[in-house]
């Protein structure tokens, strides 16, 4: 296989994996803390991308400012959707399918409102206006400023989120809620408040991820919807509730969709049109044969490490 | 003759040995009590027998036949029926439907026969009559058309007992048949159990915390503690046993 293709697919895996990680972390947060498989997460991603796009067309070309704006808008929409849709439904103690259906419905509404607007203002398949600069070039690889935005920004956000979850009170409260809701309440964790923060984080991260997605590829109102099942695949690989597992899962999905796909294409002649099936196959295999995802492995490592520490 | 025999049955959940090396015998036609403090493994033992949580090791014999490898529904088919501690009725179904569900070999339960009334009509009618008689005896006949969730706590327990009987059992494993029931009704439930033993020759294994009632009705008792059988004997022997007093009162 030509080195160019190899390296290119690896770079893309890294890029896509980082963005999937951002998206999937939000999804895992709502799943673990609020116990809701939020399919409307897809539209938060799209929304973020469009906020960035519109901002760039209006002349905002500071990327950082753009990302902050996206974060704020999508976080607001996420909080609003919780307040207006999910919270009133939850009072009736509905079945999980009711909640899934509601998230589908909300996603549908958001998606087609976007469609309406995008159609009206002619924003189909546009890219965010960021001047392209080549920062590194060799025979086999071209790295642009976009690569240096997408991957490091995602990594920084992932690290920030991990710090938040592991070293702040809010993070501990979130994990406590995810672990044992009744005990968390007994310990005085204000469930509503933590929920709002969870939605802010999940929504904001989705928005930022969408915006980053939109600077290296063109976007349309289906962007998030087309990505959401890959994002679910990352979450499923993470065992649905583990944050570290989700990050790993995201990179695994990114690699399989790009690098592994490239290999399959090159050596087995598999057509690229089958690419979207890869995350789906991951979801099915993991859920059927290893529903705890990658987490089991990691717990195993940790336990062994701790045993070694405690019983030398 | 022993109807149900357990030999060295063990069941663990992770590190927790919920049931450890339990052997016991339930003779035919007897009412046997199973007592012990919370968490001593009584409910787990019932789950093991009914294969909801199959045993890790040991043998379970029912009428001399090994059933440890059988599935839950097959065990029911052999005539070994269990009830649950929490009311486990189908709350969104009527009392009558709850009682009719366990009837065995229902022709109308096959999807290719179900759409044709005449294929199962007679059987259904016969089952309905039997159910009607049983519900009458249990004093809930008049609620036949009510949803199970609309019954009172005591009536739920009665319906559960009735439902177990509709499966034509030989041995009933009852998990706290009087939990959450007023004392007077609890006594009624046990009187019904005794009557069924007399009239139908049924055998009972009963987990119960209301010792004052239980002791008046059982033939003998097994005492469980920390997953093991501590001792067995008649009510008189059990109440005289110092080890039993210890686990119940503290030493």
């Amino acid at each position: 296989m030509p080195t160019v293709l190899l390296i290119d697919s690896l770079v893309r895996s890294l890029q896509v994996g980082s963005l999937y990680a951002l998206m999937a972390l939000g999804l895992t947060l709502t799943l673990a803390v609020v116990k809701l498989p939020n399919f409307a997460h897809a539209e938060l991603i799209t929304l973020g991308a469009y906020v960035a796009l519109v901002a760039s067309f209006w002349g905002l070309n500071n990327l950082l400012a753009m990302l902050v704006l996206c974060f704020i808008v999508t976080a607001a929409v996420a909080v609003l959707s919780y307040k207006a849709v999910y919270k009133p439904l939850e009072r009736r103690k509905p079945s999980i399918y009711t909640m899934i259906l509601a998230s589908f419905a909300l996603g549908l509404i958001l998606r087609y409102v976007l469609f309406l607007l995008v159609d009206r203002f002619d924003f189909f398949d546009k890219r965010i206006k960021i001047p392209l600069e080549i920062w590194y070039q060799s025979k086999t690889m071209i790295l642009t400023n976009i690569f240096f935005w997408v991957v490091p920004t995602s990594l920084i956000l992932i690290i920030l989120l991990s710090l938040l979850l592991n070293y702040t009170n809010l993070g501990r409260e979130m994990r406590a809620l995810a672990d044992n809701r009744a005990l968390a309440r007994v310990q005085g964790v204000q469930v509503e408040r933590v929920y709002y923060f969870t939605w802010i984080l999940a929504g904001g991260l989705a928005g930022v991820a969408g915006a980053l997605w939109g600077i290296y590829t063109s976007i349309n109102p289906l962007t998030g919807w087309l990505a959401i099942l890959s994002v679910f695949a990352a979450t499923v690989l993470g065992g649905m509730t583990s944050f570290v597992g989700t990050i790993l899962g995201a990179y695994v999905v990114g690699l399989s969709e790009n690098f592994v796909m490239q290999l399959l294409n090159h050596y087995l002649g598999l057509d690229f049109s089958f690419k979207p099936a890869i995350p789906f196959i991951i979801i099915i295999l993991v859920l059927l044969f290893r529903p705890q995802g990658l987490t089991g492995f990691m717990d195993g490592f940790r336990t062994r490490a701790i045993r070694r520490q405690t019983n030398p | 003759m022993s109807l149900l025999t357990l030999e060295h049955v063990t069941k663990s959940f992770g590190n927790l040995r919920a049931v450890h090396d339990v052997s016991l015998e339930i003779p035919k036609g007897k009412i046997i009590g199973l007592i012990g403090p919370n968490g001593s493994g009584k409910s787990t033992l019932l789950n093991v027998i009914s294969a909801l949580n199959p045993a890790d090791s040991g043998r379970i014999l029912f009428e001399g036949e090994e059933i440890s490898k059988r599935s839950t529904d097959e065990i029911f088919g052999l005539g070994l029926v269990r009830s649950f501690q929490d009311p486990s009725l189908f709350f969104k179904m009527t009392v009558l439907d709850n009682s009719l569900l366990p009837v065995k070999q229902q022709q109308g339960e096959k999807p290719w026969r179900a759409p044709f009334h005449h294929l199962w009509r007679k059987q259904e009618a016969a089952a309905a009559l039997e159910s009607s008689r049983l519900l009458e005896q249990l004093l809930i006949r008049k609620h036949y058309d009510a949803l199970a969730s609309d019954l009172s706590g005591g009536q739920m327990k009665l319906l559960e007992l009735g439902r177990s009987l509709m499966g034509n059992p030989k041995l009933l494993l009852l998990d706290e048949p009087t939990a959450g029931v007023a004392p007077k009704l609890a006594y009624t439930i046990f009187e019904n159990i005794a009557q069924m033993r007399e009239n139908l020759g049924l055998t009972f294994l009963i987990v119960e915390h209301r010792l004052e009632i239980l002791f008046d009705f059982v033939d003998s008792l097994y005492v469980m503690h920390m997953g093991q059988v501590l001792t067995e004997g008649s009510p008189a022997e059990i109440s005289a046993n110092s080890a039993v007093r210890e686990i119940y009162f503290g030493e």
Partner: protein
Amino acid sequence: MNLLTIDKLTAGYGKLTILHDLSLKVEKGQYLGILGPNGSGKSTLVKSIFGLTDIFSGSIKISGQELVGVATENICKRGLAYVPQRQNIFATMTVRDNLLLAVRHLRRPKAHRALQDAYALFPILAERQQQSAGLMSGGERQMLAIALAWLGKPQIMLLDEPSAGLSPLFVIEIFKLLRRLCESGITLVVVEQNARSLLRWCDYAYVLREGKLAFEGSSSQILADEETVKSYLGVGGTAFSQRIAE
């Protein structure tokens, strides 16, 4: 002085009424036992105080303030702490994170000091700091659960069967620890099935039967009184109670 007053409490789950018109009071500084056979409503009582059951009527007051209707998550602010019987720790978090969660309201230096105090009181937890709490043994988990409650600096701690499933040695250790907590000024309400071992440590006890108060008295009174022992087991005038009394 009464710290906690429960007045004519009727409570249960959904349609099931478990406590009937129950009244009792807890005095400040007391080490109180709630005894009774399985299914007598002991656990339901402590859960009701923490708003985890359906309360049909009656009142629960702490220092004169009503608790019925207060959301579970706001009850610890009133100076109460609760150690449930099962699932009483955050199993997927490390021991340290469990403890840090409990002291999250404190400023950093104070929180640090509180943690050191906890490690002094529960030395085993210091050793296990970085371990995932779910991987600890039953006794260690119980220690952590008590530490979680204790770190909230409560006036009154309610414990649901702290000795359940523990080895005899650990049971003694837990009761000793509770005694020390009580001496440090915390009022304790301990629900136990294992009556005699608790009665050795507590000052006063209520005995429940079928959701009602069957008997109350100081521990020595209860231990001395055969009638109470009978009523504790829930054996009324049947053959069994006569035999047991012999």
